[in-house]
């Protein structure tokens, strides 16, 4: 699936797909509800037809894809974003990556959330998720900011992120989630 784009975000291709990874699927364009339906259907069909992926692994990958793609819809519905589903045979893992523009103002909050997630244990992550679940407050889109926590939990903390300069008051936010293992 590929969407034509304009050249207003020239560095969008600088996604965080690692060198040597095989790209299974990528989509670049504006993310809408219908886009997400198509992409998720595609990923699900791919996983179901891939005999090397067990059902629990497949569900984990699908869950991570849901969170990542819906994050793009909620936070980047008016500008082009990039979503890549890839695998690394040498590292025995699947990866899901997203790249989207964020306001420079938002970046501090994002960095501190990611730093916090990356420094806590699995049990602490689960406790943090429970405490967010019980909070009455919600984010604008209903999840209360739980998306990143869920991604961290699904990947056992194997999350990488990067903020790259873009233009004016925008930064490119690259997020990669690595899921292991691929059973031979």
């Amino acid at each position, binding site marked *: 699936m590929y969407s034509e784009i304009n050249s207003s975000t020239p560095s969008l291709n600088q996604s965080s797909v690692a060198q040597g990874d095989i790209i299974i699927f990528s989509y670049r364009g504006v993310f809408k*509800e219908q886009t*997400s*339906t198509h992409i*998720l*259907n595609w990923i699900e069909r791919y996983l179901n037809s891939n005999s090397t992926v*067990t*059902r*629990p692994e497949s*569900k*984990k990958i*699908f*869950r991570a894809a*849901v*969170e990542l793609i*819906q994050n793009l*819809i*909620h936070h980047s519905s008016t500008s082009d974003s990039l979503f890549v589903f890839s695998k690394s045979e040498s590292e025995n893992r699947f990866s899901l990556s997203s790249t989207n523009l964020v306001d420079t103002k938002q970046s501090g909050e994002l960095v501190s959330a990611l730093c916090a997630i990356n420094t806590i244990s699995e049990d602490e992550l*689960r406790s943090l*998720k*429970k405490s967010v*679940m*019980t909070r009455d407050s*919600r984010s604008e*889109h*209903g*999840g*209360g900011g*739980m*998306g990143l*926590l*869920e991604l961290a*939990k*699904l990947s056992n903390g194997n999350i990488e992120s990067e903020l790259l300069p873009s233009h004016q008051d925008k930064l490119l936010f690259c997020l990669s989630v690595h899921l292991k293992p691929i059973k031979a």
Partner: protein
Amino acid sequence: MDNIFIPGTPKTPEVSFIVEARTLSLSGRSIPENSIEFYSSLIAWTDTLCSSEGFVEVNINLEYFNTSSSKCLMDLLKRIESANVDAQVNWHYEEDDEDMLEAGEDYDAIIDLPFKLIITEG
């Protein structure tokens, strides 16, 4: 007060809320972009049901749910918890699905209602 039957879709669960039996059942997947829109009428229905005394049974048998839906499920269960009703939550999860088992355990830890974690075949 009417029963609610909503067929499942690739993004929303099958809903079967039955007044007479006082049962609330959700199955399939719950990954809508706007879960608040989907769940608001279900939560309102739950409030009405729980305004009268009696046993309430909740059956949750979801293959997938997104974080936005998890907050909505929490809202729904909290409404039952705070109402003057006896209730039982049956949380179904597929064998080997550790994520769904953990989610059930987390709700069980947070919500003060009897929880039964039930393994289903994958």
